[in-house]
């Protein structure tokens, strides 16, 4: 990628380890795996190592193949609708200390979120490997819908594993996947949540690895998944960097994204990791509050461990058993996190903070009413974080009027159509006798 050279304003003079890292000439953007510091790797059954090797080899060759990169570029442009817009949110920004806020509009992509970037890339790789079937896990159904979409486009069989409880709550997303030709298999074992859907997909993969590619939905799991999923999402950060330079003539002071497994975040972060003046923030799901134990703030409160193939921060008890996470946002409701985020947290390059359900929903409503954009509840966590960051930057800027010189970039990772029922219930918008009220109580999507 061609990097535009600009004079970035100095963002303080803290001589952090990261500055030393950057001044040492090493690039944080160059992170091919399998390890990110002490995180990442392959904590996987031997049976799957050959498939991971094949995938890594195919991916590395594809990256270097102009035909493949042209295919990706063509699909991004003419199927997904990239580049996604960069929209300044002026009325919303009035609530964030008066800084300027820009939204990277991944909500405008086909299927309504950043997820499409990754599934198109992996489905192409599946074809290159001669695989005829893809499997995927899904929580609320967003990655499942995206996977079913890519499979339909490329003529692949698609099987999606989804917790039985999630299937019931997200019946319309199950229908979407089935309309797209996918088979949805409800997972009834374990805690019947996203992590169990991943477990079941891994069991399927072990048994069917000759014909099947596991289309993992986030930048986690065993190598090469974290680096590969990130690669397909780096387009977010590359576009956003060029767009903000074009619109404002400078780099942002801060970049904000929400973190579940962390794929949208790592995609936008990579555009700015090597820019020391840009502060980077990841906002985890604080659920009902990190002090309640009902949250998904993996980096904030977790401890390093191994799950689903990678060493990373993990919500676990004293015995190393995975703890169930909680969040109003299904897309952030995962007790693990991508290994590169764990590394970026440890070295201090990215700050990770929790946002509660209630803070996220306030930001959700604020964006609806100030900008006419209904965000995904996942993305609302990034918006709530951006308000806090904006207020801090404004306070640092001191005298009134200077705040407007500060720029915050937010990855609006998805649209909120899927969340209307949850939001209507949260804000008590539904008539108590309406069928929609009954449906919303179950978390169903309208």
């Amino acid at each position, binding site marked *: 990628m061609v990097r535009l050279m600009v004079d970035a304003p100095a963002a303080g003079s803290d001589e952090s380890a990261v500055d030393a890292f950057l001044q040492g000439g090493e690039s944080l953007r160059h992170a091919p795996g399998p390890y990110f510091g002490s995180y990442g*790797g*392959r*904590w*996987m*059954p*031997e*049976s*799957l*190592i*050959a*498939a991971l*090797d094949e995938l890594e080899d195919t991916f590395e060759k594809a990256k270097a193949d102009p035909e493949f990169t042209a295919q990706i570029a063509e699909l991004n442009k003419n199927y997904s609708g990239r580049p996604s817009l960069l929209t300044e949110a002026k009325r919303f920004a009035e609530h964030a200390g008066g800084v300027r806020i820009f939204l990277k509009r991944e909500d405008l992509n086909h299927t309504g979120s950043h997820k499409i970037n990754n599934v198109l890339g992996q489905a192409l790789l599946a074809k290159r490997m001669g695989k005829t079937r893809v499997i995927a896990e899904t929580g609320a159904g967003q990655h499942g819908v995206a996977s079913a979409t890519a499979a339909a486009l490329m003529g692949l069989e698609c099987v999606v594993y989804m917790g039985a409880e999630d299937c019931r709550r997200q019946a319309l997303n199950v229908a979407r996947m089935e309309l797209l030709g996918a088979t949805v298999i409800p997972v009834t*074992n*374990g*805690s019947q949540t996203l*992590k*169990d859907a991943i*477990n079941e997909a*891994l*069991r399927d993969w*072990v*048994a*069917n*690895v*000759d014909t099947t590619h596991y289309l993992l939905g986030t930048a986690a799991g065993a190598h090469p998944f974290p680096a590969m999923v990130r690669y397909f999402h780096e387009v977010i950060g590359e576009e956003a960097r060029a767009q903000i330079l074009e619109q404002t003539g400078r780099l942002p002071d801060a970049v904000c994204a929400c973190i579940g497994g962390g794929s949208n975040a790592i995609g936008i972060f990579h555009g700015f990791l090597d820019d020391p003046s840009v502060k980077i923030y990841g906002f985890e799901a604080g659920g009902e509050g990190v002090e309640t134990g009902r949250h998904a703030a993996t980096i904030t409160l977790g*401890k*390093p*461990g*191994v*799950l*689903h193939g990678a060493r990373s921060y*993990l919500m*676990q008890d*004293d*015995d*190393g*058993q*995975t703890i169930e996470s909680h969040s109003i946002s299904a897309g952030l409701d995962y007790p693990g996190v991508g290994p590169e985020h764990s590394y970026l947290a440890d070295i201090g390059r990215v700050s990770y903070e929790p946002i509660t359900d209630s803070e996220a929903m306030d930001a959700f409503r604020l964006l609806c009413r100030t900008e006419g954009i209904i965000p995904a509840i996942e993305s609302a966590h990034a918006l709530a974080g951006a308000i806090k960051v904006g207020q801090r930057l404004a306070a640092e800027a001191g005298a009134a009027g200077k705040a407007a010189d500060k720029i915050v970039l937010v990855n609006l990772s998805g649209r909120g159509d899927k969340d209307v029922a949850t939001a209507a219930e949260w804000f008590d918008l539904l008539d108590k006798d309406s069928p929609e009220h009954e449906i919303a109580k179950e978390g169903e999507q309208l």
Partner: protein
Amino acid sequence: MNHVELTPQGASKSAAAIDRAKAQGRAALIGYLPAGYPSVEATIAAGIALAENGADLIEIGIPYSDPVMDGLVIQAATTEALAKGFHVKQVFDVVRGITSKTDAAVLVMTYWNPVVRMGVDEFSRQLADAGGAGLITPDLIPDEASEWMAASDKYGLDRVFLVAPSSSPERMKRTVEASRGFVYAVSIMGVTGARTSVSSAAKDVVAAARAAGAEHVCVGLGVSNAEQVREIAAYADGVIVGTALVVAIGDGGVDAVASLTKDLSTGLTREEA
């Protein structure tokens, strides 16, 4: 790595148990039980029954929240054990309870995160202290095992890694070299659970492991009856039975484990060709 050799090479408890069986002209029988199912006491009693009825080695599984290599039967058993409040440290009570009463080599089979959480060195120390022979590690490959290599050397524990039908010759060699005690040959591309027939891939995996230098190769996954034991005993050093024993203890308790073990052991003797 600054490790201390407390145990001379060749003192592997697992290898010794397999060699004792070999000296009797038969393959070794390895039985699996999940710790704490249906109770810690029952696991100890069933482990002793296994040893008294023909098992040479015993595998005690640590119930784990995310058992990706296990099929429905073992998942259900370990989920129940966790729901009843099983704690990882109780696995040492189980190991001690069996090794204090029998001569069987007792290994622990565990997904890796519980070991990481306790600390690899501390876990190894306690396992050795309880008389354990070593660990079987379904989601740990030698590439990630440097800490475990050091701890297992320090405490004289066996390292049983898995090899699979999909393992390349290079990986087979690397895994065999990293292993001590025996190599666990996965008979099929899949998860644990009884199957009606043994995959033909099993024989090839054993041959590949031997070609890579393995002295002791045991076959597991999908083995549930004496006929399948007989088939595998013809070419492997040991036969691993899991799900069938879990069904037995769940349905018929310790007595059922004893009678199934007795039946399985009839398949161990190699018939003269």
